[in-house]
């Protein structure tokens, strides 16, 4: 528990720095939320726009705006979205579920499959299985995400009709209860596959290398010298040690994953934070964008915490107290 608190305290300066950095970066962007709103509305007088700016607090000097924002963030008030006219926290929490769902399923699939493929490849080193897995991993990594996404839609939604093309739920039906869970799971399949294919390669390769490295360690020789079976050596001795770098990598990847999902969210109309951030950026919805950066930073910190705990449970040398 103390460890958790400590980690969270350590994260505070980082999160603040992220907010401040992005706050000033966004000031460099031309135009503001009012321009966008007025542009979308079709027409607006300069007086009206000035009024709007005053309403959003955009007329105040920058340091004051920042100070106000930071003061509010301290009490976890993320402010009001200019464009959506609702509290940022509400907007984000609406999307958080979808993001966390996609992220979790992607990590599980990518890590799970990556570990499995890496394992198979390492065990059949230099056989056709190893080669096939390596080539598969490389190709999935090298294929642009949106291409994979669109192709999966064409094949699995249009031609085979197995999965819906997009969205998170069936909006014609509005299922309840278990049916809804099943419906969401059904919608989750294609985006998860698309997103995890990219990361799959990473974990496969890492796992393979890690297995090979661990297989050359002295303790493996010891285990052999004890007469332990090869299967146990692989699946008990080596596997657990080989997983360590994979777990570390999974932690590092989380930040990238939230961002990397923009394209997948766009292709599959998945209502996640990535797309929201994208739209917020292009509508100069400062509060919303900063809120997303804030939350995703927290998310990364939280996931890393989980990763640390998982790591320490795998590796007794690391202690979390």
């Amino acid at each position, binding site marked *: 528990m103390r460890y958790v608190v400590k980690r969270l305290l350590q994260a505070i300066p980082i999160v603040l720095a992220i907010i401040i950095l992005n706050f000033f970066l966004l000031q460099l962007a031309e135009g503001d939320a009012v321009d966008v709103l007025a*542009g979308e509305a079709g027409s607006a007088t300069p007086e009206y726009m000035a009024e709007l700016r005053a309403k959003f607090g955009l007329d105040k000097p920058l340091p004051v705006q920042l100070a106000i924002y930071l003061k509010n963030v301290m009490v976890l008030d993320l402010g009001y979205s200019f464009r959506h006219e609702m509290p940022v926290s509400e907007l984000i929490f609406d999307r958080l579920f979808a993001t966390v769902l996609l992220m979790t399923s992607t990590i599980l699939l990518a890590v799970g499959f990556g570990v499995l493929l890496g394992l198979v490849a390492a065990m059949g080193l230099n056989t056709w299985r190893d080669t096939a897995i390596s080539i598969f991993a490389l190709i999935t990594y090298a294929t642009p995400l949106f291409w994979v996404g669109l192709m999966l839609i064409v094949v699995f939604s249009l031609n085979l009709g197995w999965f819906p093309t997009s969205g998170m739920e069936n909006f014609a039906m509005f299922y309840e209860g278990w049916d809804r869970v099943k419906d969401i799971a059904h919608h989750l399949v294609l985006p998860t596959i698309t997103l995890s294919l990219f990361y799959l390669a990473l974990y496969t390769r890492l796992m393979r290398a890690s297995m090979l490295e661990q297989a050359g360690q002295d303790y493996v020789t010891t285990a052999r010298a004890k007469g332990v079976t090869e299967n146990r050596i692989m699946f008990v001795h080596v596997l657990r040690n080989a997983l360590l770098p994979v777990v570390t990598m999974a932690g590092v990847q989380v930040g990238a994953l939230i961002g990397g999902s923009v394209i997948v969210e766009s292709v599959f109309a998945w209502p996640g934070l990535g797309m929201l951030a994208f739209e917020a950026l292009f509508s100069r919805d400062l509060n919303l964008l900063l809120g997303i950066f804030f939350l995703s930073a927290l998310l990364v910190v939280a996931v890393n915490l989980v990763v640390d705990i998982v790591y320490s449970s795998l590796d007794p040398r690391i202690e979390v107290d």
Partner: protein
Amino acid sequence: MNFRTWVGAALCAAGLAAGAGSATAQTAGGTLVYIVQPEPPSLASFLSTSGPIGLVAPKIYDGLFDYDNDLNIVPALAESYEVSDDGKTVTFKLREGVTWHDGAPFTSADVQFTVMEVLKKVHPRGPNSFREVMSIDTPDDYTAVFNLENPAPYMLRALSGYESPIVPKHLLEGQDPRNSDLATNPVGTGAYKFTEWRKGQYVRLDKNENYWKDGLPYLDRIVGRFIPDASTRTAAMENSEVMYGAYGAIPNIDAVRLRDMDGFSVTTDGYSMINPMALIEFNTKESPFDQAAIRQAVSLAIDREFLIENIWFGYGKPATSALSTNFSATGLYKAGLPNYPANADVDAAIKVLEDAGITADGDGVRARAVLDLIPYGEDWRRAGEYMKQALAPIGIELDLRYEDVPTWLKRVYADYDFQINVNYFYQLPDPVLGVHRHYGSDQIRQGTHFVNSSRYSNPELDALLAAGAQEADAAKRSEIYGQIQEILAEDMPVVNLFEMQFLTVYNDKLKDHATSALGAYGPFERVWIEE
């Protein structure tokens, strides 16, 4: 000419239409899922004419009128209207027994409040549409009398539920309409009631059981889905996950493909009130486009057919004047003007340039400029790339600059920091509403979007525009607009490229969705789904 008009004929027509509809045994019930793209910022159609709002809000709010596909007035909240002989008083007889979604009765006070306190004050186009309205009298609950300063025949074209939604006075009075809860929680009199808006996913409207048209709407529910990626929208349409997509939701190229498939159709109906025109805006205050000759040359060098054929896949009509040919019905459009070739005329363009003394340097370049364009999608990018290629042969070398919406808006309309800009405008049902804003000196309004960013100013034209706005006589009006178009064909502060034809792609099971001139911006009360 007598301006006194009863709408008996229109009423009759509406009745016929309804009768014809009922003959084909509509199925009641079902959910329509249609594409709303992008996700609207709010549902405050009284504050914003933003496209996606238009796709949702008119299902919730009614206007005084609706319009059929031939732009005839169809009564809605107003059962009939009467225009005085001098054209300065318009009396609307309102429908009785209409209630708001929250149960409150709809009365003339709502109309008065909406126009005077909301539309005239905070609607983007309201101040223009209702500029002549001085006051509105409400002799009784179901009569609204508009007192005008000058006759405003165009006003009657701006009374749809999309353009001028009637909003509930009891929910807005005493508040700043720009800050009201109504924006995200709308309450109207329309066929559907607002139920839920799941950000990033959909907005859901359910059937209004107390709708004033008996037996309507047929559908139990309509759901507007937000799907950011165009290819995915097409796939969703193909997979029947959505049944309706308008305003280019399905890219033209895919629309063409779907059109040729069983079960899907494409229509260009439903956009006559919008009248969109693709065009080029020039910065007329800065070299090189401060000379009319070079602007004419641009117009001559662009192959309008090519644009339509290869970027919009055949949907569109080369522009031939400052006004759309859709205005020929009202006699305002003038044909046979120079400088609007359907196919590029490079020789003519070069001759214009040579005659004006704009000569090429050693590299064959006469002028260099940066082309901006409206950041509203891939088609426009293609258009920009095409223009770069099309203008090279006449010695105009373009660099392309694609920026996001706020940057672009600020550059063009606030900073005037541009040279040549591709854009599109809605000409709307009357030039006063949609066209004047491009050209009038009074429309050089720095910081206001979609007005005269060319900063073209011509006193002669200003006078003609003023006259045209008030002229009630059709023949005289036609003559005035003829002159206007002639001047613009020479000066070309704006080069019209082509009349856009927006596409609506729909599943063939979806019926009666194009009964209104508003099309996708219509109320959808008669839409039904075949089993």
